[in-house]
């Protein structure tokens, strides 16, 4: 029911946005929507496992990311308001329209309990993302948008074929109901060849959303061309959407005979993603692209940890949440940086620490957190990952360790150019950034740091329910 109300409200608000687009009331309306979003996620959190409109369920996995989404969309909204100060009314209304649309679509992706429905909403995210990416309306954004929309659509079409295969040979006697629970049953009796093919196609297709190898490139272009708050949104909430859509299918398949094979494929994909991010970080000339590559890196790590069974899923969730916080914070900061230095380019911009010390320190902190150096919470998850790799997968352990070191080197060398390097042209600090713009990053980083020392129980329980761990593995290392 509430889902329906939510959809209706969303529709209503977007209609109003369209209607008032001349009046320039769109920010207000979008604010209202964000409020609705937050209320909705809280509602969802209060009554768990509620089934809505037959296709949506508020299970633990969706709840985690709904809460996350409400955080991120609030922050993104706040930043976009200041970002769009001097945008045209039409541009604003279009922007907020797509913003609302993508929020709705993501909510759909998170909560969908049906493989096809999830697919539909994924496609919707692509389409609504187009409006956000192309906001600047210059050549770069146009190119990025075209590539993003096109390749995402192709990928998702391929994923659809995969889904068809997966559900194909369930043989007679099985309901054509495509909800994940029933799929879990169906897959047990599906021809493994088909299943493998399906998994492969789905992985390849959704990789465009998850920003992992092979279709990671478009995500990077999108992050680069989009406005900074949007990049923050894309590389966290949207990526999480792709991750959920994939993980649900993965978990449905993991009971079957091909699970070992899947693990290996995941490890290969993860390592390849790590590799490409390590490679391109040495080359990146642009701050936002650098951050985008670090997203690729983290998703690669997450895929690897997915292949490690239940605890692996726990690790993946943990890392994904923290990554969302830190990465979005970094992108917001990069927006402020662009206001100050007028450029993202490493060889143009520089001396940020001198020009804007607070921002500089925030950037430094974010850089430290994203490279999983304590007190970053990601360190915990990577520690657990290494621990898991430690029993049996020493080769992967070594590969991951080496690549992570390279990535760390890349991030630090590149970022230090911006932070401490000499700018080739020094802009007088024209815009005085108001303090509240830093608050989002400070809070997010604070959360990420706090996670290193303490996990709130409800979150811990959510993760446990998702990964189906229960009590049998001892997480007492979180005791402090």
């Amino acid at each position, binding site marked *: 029911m509430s889902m329906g109300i939510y959809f209706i409200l969303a529709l209503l608000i977007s209609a109003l946005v369209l209607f008032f687009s001349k009046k320039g009331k769109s920010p207000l309306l979008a604010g209202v929507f964000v409020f609705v979003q937050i209320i909705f996620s809280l509602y969802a959190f209060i009554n768990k496992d509620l089934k809505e409109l037959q296709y949506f369920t508020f299970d633990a996995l969706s709840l985690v990311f709904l809460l996350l989404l409400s955080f991120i969309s609030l922050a993104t909204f706040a930043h976009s308001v200041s970002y769009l100060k001097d945008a045209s009314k039409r541009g604003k209304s279009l922007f907020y329209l797509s913003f609302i649309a993508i929020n709705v679509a993501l909510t759909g992706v998170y909560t969908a309990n049906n493989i096809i429905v999830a697919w539909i909403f994924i496609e919707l995210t692509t389409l609504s993302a187009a409006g956000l990416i192309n906001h600047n309306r210059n050549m770069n954004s146009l190119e990025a948008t075209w*590539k993003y929309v*096109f*390749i995402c659509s*192709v*990928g998702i079409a*391929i994923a659809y074929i995969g889904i068809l295969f997966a559900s194909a040979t369930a043989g007679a006697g099985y309901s054509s109901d495509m909800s994940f629970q029933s799929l879990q049953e169906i897959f047990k009796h599906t021809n493994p060849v088909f299943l*493998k093919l399906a998994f*492969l*196609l789905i992985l*390849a297709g959704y*990789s465009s959303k998850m920003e992992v*190898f*092979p*279709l990671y*490139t*478009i995500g990077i272009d999108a992050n680069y061309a989009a406005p900074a708050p949007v990049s923050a949104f894309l590389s966290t909430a949207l990526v999480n959407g792709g991750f959920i859509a994939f993980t649900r299918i993965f978990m449905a398949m993991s009971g079957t005979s091909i699970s070992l*094979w899947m693990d*290996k*494929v995941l490890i*290969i994909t993860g390592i*390849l993603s790590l590799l490409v991010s*390590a*490679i*391109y970080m*040495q*080359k990146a000339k642009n701050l936002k692209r650098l951050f985008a590559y670090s997203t690729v890196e983290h998703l690669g790590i997450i895929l690897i940890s997915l292949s490690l069974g239940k605890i692996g899923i726990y690790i993946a969730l943990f890392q994904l949440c923290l990554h969302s916080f830190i990465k979005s914070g970094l992108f917001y900061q990069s927006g402020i940086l662009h206001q100050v230095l007028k450029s993202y380019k490493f060889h143009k911009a520089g001396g940020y*620490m*001198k020009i804007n*010390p*607070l921002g500089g*320190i925030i950037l*430094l902190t974010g850089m*430290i957190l994203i490279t999983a*150096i*304590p*007190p970053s919470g990601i*360190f*915990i998850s990577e*520690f657990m990952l*290494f*621990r898991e790799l*430690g*029993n049996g997968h020493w080769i992967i*352990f070594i590969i991951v*360790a080496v690549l992570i*070191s*390279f990535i*760390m*080197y890349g991030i*630090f*060398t590149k970022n*230090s150019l911006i*932070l*401490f390097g000499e700018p080739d042209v020094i802009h007088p600090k024209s815009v005085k950034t108001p303090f509240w713009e830093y608050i989002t990053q400070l809070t997010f980083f604070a959360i990420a740091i706090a996670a*290193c020392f303490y996990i709130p129980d409800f979150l811990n329980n959510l993760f446990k329910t998702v990964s189906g761990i229960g009590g049998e593995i*001892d997480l*007492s*290392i979180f*005791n*402090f």
Partner: protein
Amino acid sequence: MIFNIVVSSWIGINALIPRLFLGTAMNFKNPGGVFNYIECDKLSAFFILIINFTVLTGFIYAGGYLKPYLNRKPASWIKLHYLAIVLLHLSMIMVTLFRNALGFMIVWELMTLSSFILVIFDYDVTGTIKIGINYLVQMHIGMLFILSALIMSSHGCQIISFDNLSGWFCNNPNWPVYLLFFIGFGLKAGFFLLHTWLPDAHPAAPSHVSGMMSGVMIKLGIYGILRVTTYLQNDLQAIGASVLVFSAITGIFGVMMAILQHDIKKLLAYHSIENIGIIGMGIGLGIFGEATGNYIISAAGFAGALLHTLNHSLFKSLLFYSSGSVIQQIHTRNVERMGGLIKFMSFTAGAFLIGALAISGLPPFNGFVSEFLIYSSFIHGLTGAGFYSIILFFVSMISLVLIGGLALLCFTKVFGIVFLGQARFKYEHEPKEASGGMIVAELLIIVPVILIGILPVMATKPILNVVNAVFSSDARISQLNIVAPLKSVSVAAMIFLIFLGVMFLLRYLVFRKKTITIAPTWGCGYTAVDEKQQYTATSFVQEYAELINPFIKTGNTDVKFTSDEIFPGSREFHSHSDDNIRLKVINRPATFMVNILRKAAVFQTGKLQHYVLYALLFLVLIFLLTYLKLI
């Protein structure tokens, strides 16, 4: 506000420590909470003492040292710097306290991180950032080594912790895990081949930071090695021997490189490597002694190592601080541009002299005591041990002797060139004596330096307690064989001092009525002497450089004369000595790898079709792998 935090943190910890130190090992076990895995035995307590003292002096010194920067750097950056000092202090203390891997790793990385922020304080000096990042990444790699060792050793345990080591070491060969640990901690401590970050990081950092880092932070690598050593069960002989030899190489390499340096802080950094080598010798001896069940050797070795850790933290920080005062005044680290500073900054000169004497291991200063302990361990080994172990001991003892001699050569050079004679170049402004805070800090260090030198027993007894508590050794024997000679050493030192006093009195009496005339330096009949003709550091070590040329190349760069120039223009010439180990072992492979990565980046064409093709190729790859049963 930062200041308050720091002060309170010390007052708390300083109050806490002596109880820990003297009292038996205490062991919080209240369920849950941060104290769940904290355990403070005597070893930790000992290191905490060192940390507190050095950080205290470092902080006092920093107050004076950072004054000139206050207006040049953004205030928030200075704040961050102080914050990092506090963080470094706390994390170092926590490192000594934590036993479980996660907590240990977190604080270990925090330590690296805060020191990184401290190192890049002078970020607008070119190269500083690069050095800092290099340091950070190397430490990260070291962390991964330690992590892998811990994970490997606590295989199948609920909680990864150092406490699992004893179990693992009982049932498995010790050396592989120990090797991993040694690499991991050795990277922090700066052993040979693992040292490459060290000679850069110390000069790049401001002096109080170098003092703290070289004084205590790299010692935590030693702490880690000792901690792991306490759990060792078998392979002791092999491990001990290899550690001994490796440390000997480290020591000799460090001091050999140090002599050739003309950047004063780089020189001191190489000396840290040397001293780490000496400490490592002590540890190796200790392990070896345990292996052969000869407790005198082991006790003397471990005690020597611990005492030298303490001593080195003292005199090395003293040296860094005093050199820092010099650098602050004349804005260069090149010794060739200094000279005659004793007349301007006499106290700093005195402090440096004491530090130099101590680090050269000369009586009656503390450096001698710890080296004496290690020596006595050696000679005990000589008097009663097997054939091969005698050769081992003998060779490494001789290397220790060499280290001593070389250190003397090095520090006579530094002190002579920097403080004595005349200024070789004109200083841009008259150097002034260091400000109050810095002097106080140096005084604070000088006191224990001399005290330990005169009353070694006072320092050695507690350390022997630590050794007896932590390592398996016999209290009686150690008391008998180790403390007794030290007693006579202190007697000798007393006599020496008394005699010194008497002689000064005598000199005073003699010169009371005599005429003291001041004349120019005698130039052997050559009258037009000027400061440019003084002996330089390069020429001082030239013979030595020729001697060791096979091992360490020293190159010159100069501009050759061409035939066509009738009136040759100005020429410039300077000699340099480069750390081949660093070039060959670290830089080349690293750059090689990075270049490979760069080359691999051609795949990103920006063409949409290619991206789709990659997806296809990925599918095909997986198909093939599956088809060929590879996965």
